[in-house]
């Protein structure tokens, strides 16, 4: 019996051994959802986006066909590019703003929602040319990042420090209250300052910037031209969607937006000879009754965090005539 028992035990053990042959199936072991969102785009993806946008721009620029831009360009950028193409077709060979494809700084968004904003500081397009701050926007998952705006960085302007692209920077809503001024209000207040000048209650919130100076000087120039023979009015308002805000390292933000400036000139019994670019857009160089000029300013502000006494600095801008009407 003892031997029988032993043998039986051995047989059972052998059977068990053989039966245990099946290895467990691998099961998915995903990483946990990180507490802090990762950047929505890797540097590789940013390079891809830049490359594709550059390619699209290059193609469209060469053909000066706006439709070619549609996949990769939108908003103010599209508008400005349109004007540039018009000017180009009118014979202005320098109208098209070159957009470098090489990035020197990437501000990658950390978000899992849309729209997403990607900002890139390019290499200088040419010697002694300021780099551009490009803003790309992806409105929905099935859309691409599209170039929304570009701003020439002002000479000497200091880009606020931002997080490394591997870490990513948070996107701020237009009404974010962590800033000295909410992004949406930044554009509105800036427009108010442009409109009202020193009378604006917000004038103190903004540091002096080349754009404001330029707009005023242009206005004054037109005013001088019109003189007593007509009237000149100019309005300023945010446009083109946005603004888009990306948090900076100090808790502030880079706010990118567009300001539309509309200059309306009414002539009384006189003609006005207009300059090359305006004439190019208009198709003629002389107007007899009125002249309407629409400008788009793609601007970038460095907004300090809430509680800061620092003024809002404009770090870059691109001010372009986009439309001219006149009789």
């Amino acid at each position: 019996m003892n031997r029988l028992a032993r043998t039986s035990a051995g047989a059972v053990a052998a059977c068990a051994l053989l039966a245990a042959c099946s290895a467990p199936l691998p099961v998915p072991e995903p990483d946990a959802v990180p507490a802090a969102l990762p950047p929505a785009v890797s540097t590789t993806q940013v390079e891809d986006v830049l490359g594709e946008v550059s390619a699209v721009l290059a193609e469209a620029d060469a053909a000066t066909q706006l439709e070619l831009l549609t996949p990769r360009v939108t908003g103010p950028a599209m508008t400005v590019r349109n004007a540039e193409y018009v000017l180009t077709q009118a014979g202005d060979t320098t109208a098209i703003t070159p957009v470098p494809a090489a990035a020197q700084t990437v501000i990658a968004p950390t978000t899992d929602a849309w729209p997403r904003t990607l900002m890139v500081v390019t290499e200088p397009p040419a010697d002694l040319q300021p780099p551009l701050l490009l803003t790309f926007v992806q409105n929905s998952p099935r859309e691409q990042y599209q170039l929304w705006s570009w701003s020439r960085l002002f000479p000497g302007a200091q880009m606020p420090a931002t997080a490394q692209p591997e870490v990513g920077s948070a996107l701020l809503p237009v009404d974010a209250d962590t800033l000295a001024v909410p992004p949406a209000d930044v554009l509105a207040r800036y427009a108010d300052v442009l409109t009202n000048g020193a009378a604006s209650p917000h004038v103190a919130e903004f540091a002096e910037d080349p754009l404001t100076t330029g707009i005023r000087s242009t206005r004054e120039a037109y005013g001088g031209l019109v003189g007593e023979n007509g009237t000149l009015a100019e309005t300023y308002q945010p446009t083109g969607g946005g603004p888009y805000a990306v948090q900076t390292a100090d808790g502030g933000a880079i706010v990118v937006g567009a300001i539309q400036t509309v200059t309306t000139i009414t002539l009384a019994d006189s003609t006005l000879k207009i300059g090359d670019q305006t004439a190019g857009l208009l198709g003629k160089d002389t107007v007899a009754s009125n002249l309407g000029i629409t400008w788009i300013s793609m601007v970038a502000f460095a907004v300090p965090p809430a509680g800061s006494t620092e003024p809002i600095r404009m770090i870059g801008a691109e001010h372009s005539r986009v439309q001219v009407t006149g009789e």
Partner: protein
Amino acid sequence: MLQRALASLLCLLGAAAIGLGFASATLWRASDTLEASATAADGSTLLMTDPGVLDMAADEVTVRASAGSGDTVVLALGRTADVEAWIGTDAHTRVTGLADLRTLSTDDVAATAPEATEETPAEGEVPAEGEAPVEGEAPAEGEAATTGDDAAAATPAPNPSGSDLWLVEASGDGEAELEWQAQDGRWSLLVATTGESAGAPTVTLVWPQVVTTPWLVPGVAGGAALLLAGLVWWAVLLLRSRRAGHAGRTRDDARPVSVPLGAQGVAVPTTAPVSAPSLGWANDTPTVAPGTATTSLPAPGGVGTTADPAVPMTRRQLRELDQQRERDRHRRRDSGAVPQVPAPGSPSSAPAPAPGVPAPVPAEHVAPEQAAVRARFPLAVQGPGASPAVAAGTAPAAPSGAAPTAPSAPMSGPGRQGVPAPGLRSTPGVPAGPVVQPVPVPTSQAPVTTPDAEPQDRRGGLLGRLRRRGPATPVSEPDVERTPAAASAPAVVAPDTVPGRPGAPAPSADAWRRAWGFSGVATPPGEEPAGWTPVEPEENAGGRHDGGAR
């Protein structure tokens, strides 16, 4: 039977384990790749993997996708959140893991309504419709845009290729392949078919895997152990059964071997009839050994009168006895008992010389001799035990020896007294000899010799044996010399060896003893020459005994 069955079972299990072990490493050896597939649900052109699925079996994965004829298959890999967002509310199939080693487990997700309304408003200010299908640098812009419009309207899932969301992507006509190295984070694969009537895509994930054969060694080793155990068991069983069978056949023969010699004589029943002879001897005396009788007459004297013992058995009895012994010897040879004989042989000769002392024969010496005697001739040993046996054993011989050795009698005190009377009676002439003369010797021997030569037929067995022991019979040459010596010796030689104790009567006694087989006992065939001489003195002992016992 149960044991045999179990042993067989053990062997069987062992063989099976070995076979399975080998099979696991060959026939059933896992593939170098783990390959599992899944197909999207009918009506769905989208399929995605859950995070962790891509690297669940290995860090490297090769993704293959296929679709029906003419459909373009797109493989795209991105963050899980991005893939989910891209799919949005469209119907799709999620791969959740492995169902088995060849099948991926899936989970079908139906489309949800709000999708269409959500998408359109997002487009905003741009002519967004054409954008998705155009795919960046895609070849034909205008045309692509138009088809894109159609596709977007017709099918819920546009072509995902070219999206900025993807890190890696691939597409092809009918099938596509993509490789992916695991990275930190949550990643998913999107598989989509595009086209007018795109069907459900099928995806296959292929992971390289290190194939181990964990059951080869244990299987073979364990199997071998089991098999060996079974075989050993079987061998033991077989051996045991064979031994049992053999024992059954040879038990009768074998038993004597194992049984102590001392007990043998007693044990053997065949001796029983012969054991009685002590009585029979007297009766048969006249018939048995006439020759000896004549010779004995002179010697025994007083003792000789009762010399009946000299002729203890009838010929028939002798024959039977002889046959019996012959048989015994054969058996013993067969059984290998023979070797035991020689041992006592040599000692037997040794103790013999001591004859001078009647009883003194040391137990130790006696024992072997006795043992030999018993072995050879159980009859002699029959009743008595150890030392007494010696006396008894020799006793029968003694009278016989005494009788013929009449001549020697003169030498010994007791013998002397007896000698004259009988000697005179039987053979007047002879008596003179008693002193030293060899005369009686020849006579005494003659009977031995002659019968030896002639009656061979009749007592073939016994005599044959004697003759075989060549030296035993005076006839042989060496004997001739010796016998005279021995014969005459009684006076001369014996004294030398044993002063004051003449072993004279030796010749005849010797013959007798031999005739009864005692000598045979003492001297094994091979040692006869050596053993022979020493035997003689023994007769003295016999003589003594006869004097004492009888």
